[in-house]
């Protein structure tokens, strides 16, 4: 009998891996380390020095006052995009369209902050931000309703709507909203009354980060404490059981996706009012897509998203320094981002109970 029990647990290392992956934060750290390890090998392969590259990267993103400020500036949209992807994915909706929703938000923010003039900042700034959230929400509503009513695959629709929004945006700053004085494809500057206050003097660090962190906390509270949050968790956990219990599954999903779009739109609004101060094509270096990696790394947990957003912001910010001082192209960020996503997908392998649930539902 004792013998057969030993036979049952023949490989202690497997138990070990399971125990590690059951502890969520350890596996999260492992995912990041593994991605950087593979990234390092790649740097080695292209003739760079990975240690030096990563050192430069950390220095560039946290090494001085300005670097730190820039990292936080980038954390802000990343955090909101991560929350956006996370809340939608909680209802099994793959929002690959956060990028488009960021631009949609920027458009409405631009309209509200360029063409409305002469009102107090106390009203104007919130109005501009709200307009952005509205823009993102509306742009996300289309694929949401298409999936809810017609069961149209949202990966494709949200993605195609990214392309479409990019061209609409490009058209706007090239035509109707163009600043003809500058001679460039950009809009005129937005009203000063809609500029987000600066937190750290002589840097670009603006108060948007406070809004983003607040959004994460609010989202966490919604998920934990409200009927909507409870329903979102039930739908995400087991769609059929939720439906059987009388929860309107499609409505819940649409609500979650609208929130998702609003968060992305808010990210766009904050970029415009906090950093760019005008509409300019290509102002987002793919924050929407980075949001996917941010959300998955944080296992869709809003508070976790704060930290994973910080990580990716540092990566993005330090990449510039890495390119300049260690000759590793910025594109390295995308590689590590992709690796994080892939390793996040693999980690469930070692956690069989999670796996069975996923396969069963």
């Amino acid at each position, binding site marked *: 009998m004792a013998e*057969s029990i030993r036979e049952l647990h023949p490989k202690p290392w497997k138990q070990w891996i399971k125990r590690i992956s059951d502890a969520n934060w350890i596996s999260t750290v492992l995912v990041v380390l593994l991605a950087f390890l593979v990234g390092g090998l790649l740097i080695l392969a292209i003739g760079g020095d990975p240690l030096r590259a990563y050192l430069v990267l950390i220095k560039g993103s946290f090494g001085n006052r300005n670097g730190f400020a820039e990292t936080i500036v980038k954390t802000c949209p990343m955090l909101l995009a991560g929350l956006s992807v996370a809340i939608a994915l909680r209802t099994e909706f793959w929002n690959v369209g956060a990028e488009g929703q960021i631009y949609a938000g920027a458009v409405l923010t631009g309209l509200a902050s360029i063409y409305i003039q002469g009102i107090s900042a106390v009203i104007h700034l919130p109005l501009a931000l709200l307009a952005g959230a509205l823009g993102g929400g509306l742009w996300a509503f289309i694929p949401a309703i298409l999936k809810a009513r017609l069961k149209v695959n949202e990966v494709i629709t949200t993605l195609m709507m990214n392309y479409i929004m990019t061209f609409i945006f490009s058209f706007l700053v090239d035509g109707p909203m163009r600043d003809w004085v500058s001679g460039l494809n950009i809009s005129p500057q937005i009203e000063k009354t809609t500029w987000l206050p600066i937190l750290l003097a002589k840097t670009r660090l603006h108060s948007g980060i406070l809004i983003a962190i607040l959004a994460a906390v609010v989202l966490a509270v919604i998920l934990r404490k409200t*009927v909507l949050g409870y329903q979102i968790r*039930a739908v995400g*956990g087991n769609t059929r059981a939720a439906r*059987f219990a*009388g929860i309107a599954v499609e409505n819940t999903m649409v609500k979650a996706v609208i929130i998702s779009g609003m968060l992305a739109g808010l990210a766009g609004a904050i970029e415009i009012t906090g950093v760019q101060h005008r509409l300019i094509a290509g102002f987002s270096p793919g924050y929407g897509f980075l949001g996917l990696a941010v959300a998955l790394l944080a296992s869709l947990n809003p508070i976790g998203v704060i930290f994973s957003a910080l990580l990716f912001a540092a990566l993005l910010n330090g990449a510039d320094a890495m390119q300049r001082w260690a000759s590793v192209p910025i594109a390295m960020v995308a590689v590590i981002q992709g690796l994080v996503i892939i390793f996040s997908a693999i980690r469930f392998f070692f956690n069989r109970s999670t796996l069975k*649930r996923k396969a069963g539902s």
Partner: protein
Amino acid sequence: MIDHHIPVVRLVNITKSFGDVIADDGVNFELLPGEIHGLLGENGAGKTTLMNILYGLHQPDAGEILIRGEVHQVSSPHKAIELGIGMVHQHFMQVATMSVIDNIILGLKVGSDFKLGRDAARKRLLELCKLYGLNVDPDAFIWQLSIGDRQRVEILKALYRDVNILILDEPTSVLTPQETTELFYTIRKLVDAGLSVIFITHKLEEATSITNRVTVMRDGKVVATKETKKTSKPELAYLMVGREVLFRTKVETREKNSHRDVLRVSNLKVKGDRGNIAVQGVSFTVQSGEIVGIAGVDGNGQSELTQALTGLREVLSGNFWVDDVELTNASPYKVIQHGVGHIPEDLADGIVSDLTLVENLMLNRHYKPPYSKNGWMNERIMESEARELIHQHDIRTSGALAKAGTLSGGNKQKLIVAREISRNPILLIAVHPTRGVDIGAEEYIRNLLVQMRNRRGAVLLVSTKLDEIMDLSDRILVMEKGRIMGEMMREEANIEKIGLLMAGAEG
């Protein structure tokens, strides 16, 4: 010649676990040439896992497999087939979108690498059909066939591979009594032709009627192996569950005073998943203080009917009322609001594994006061009520705030039943409420249904277990191919009568 003393299969000390669950624990088993060997045990006793190991679908953690006296590693089903072992699974291993002949030759080297040899295969298949008196059309698609036909395809698949050891996993669970008789006839013919058969079942009746020997399993261990002639049903039952089993829960004839119609169904037609019409115009009523049982072989429209009644599936035509309120094509939410409780067919559809017990118990009431107000949950009230339910229904758990996914199958089902009944529904639709649960939970759930009826609630019970239907129902309906074939009071019901209706004879 067959040597009757060397077993064709010997399993020695087979042990297998899945995660923390030990499915088989040092199991020994022998199959003699030319015998029909029953493998008897409750759900979860480890029978199927054991046979999946013999068939190469699972690898044992420990133990040896001897085929005709030689030790073999059965590393895959492919290897098993090479060794002459075939298996007919409870869930048929067939590709529904393919034809019978393609399913038969699947995985075999028929023809060249560049061209399948369908014609030769078809000829051989037809010869086998003739030899064993099994009838199927080689070019029909699997999805077009009846369950009985599909089972024959499975048997033919094994025969086509020249197996001489055949494992049948709960082969009668999907058959009508008449089809079962036919199957037994086929099995005897196979044995006459020299095959040895392992017959997995949990039904005592079958274990004693067709087998030569019976091995009884309980909790992953072999309890005993008996010669069928030298044992009896009560003895086997005792071995199977470790105690005397007799379900005591039965309904008593109800008093005949004023009962109102709670559920009224009129000429209901419901679409199936494949565009077919799964429910073809049924009408019936369920009264207060009454359990109406729907008997029938799985897949004859019962699922679609109950899904339509709970708002989960669209009604094509016809209507139904609950307490004179029409709920045809109402949303599940509305149906629940009108006091309908629902124990879903599949346990997995009643539980959100990632949520806590508390959250799962409140799934059908969380959106209204006092559980929530203005969109905010009241966790205190939810938790105290949930704890009470857990205590009252003896749901075995490590805590009210544990994830529901950690519960055992029986306790999950108890949770669902507790949740549905505690809302005091005027109508409870219970679909296979005791499927896959242990005997203790089964008895408990049967009791709750009867209690609800005695409190003048209405219960619609769908089950494929005839004994359950006959023990609990006041009135019995039999469904076949989407129609109600007959209706009878409990007093007039017997197995033969129900069996005939299940097979489609007009009642």
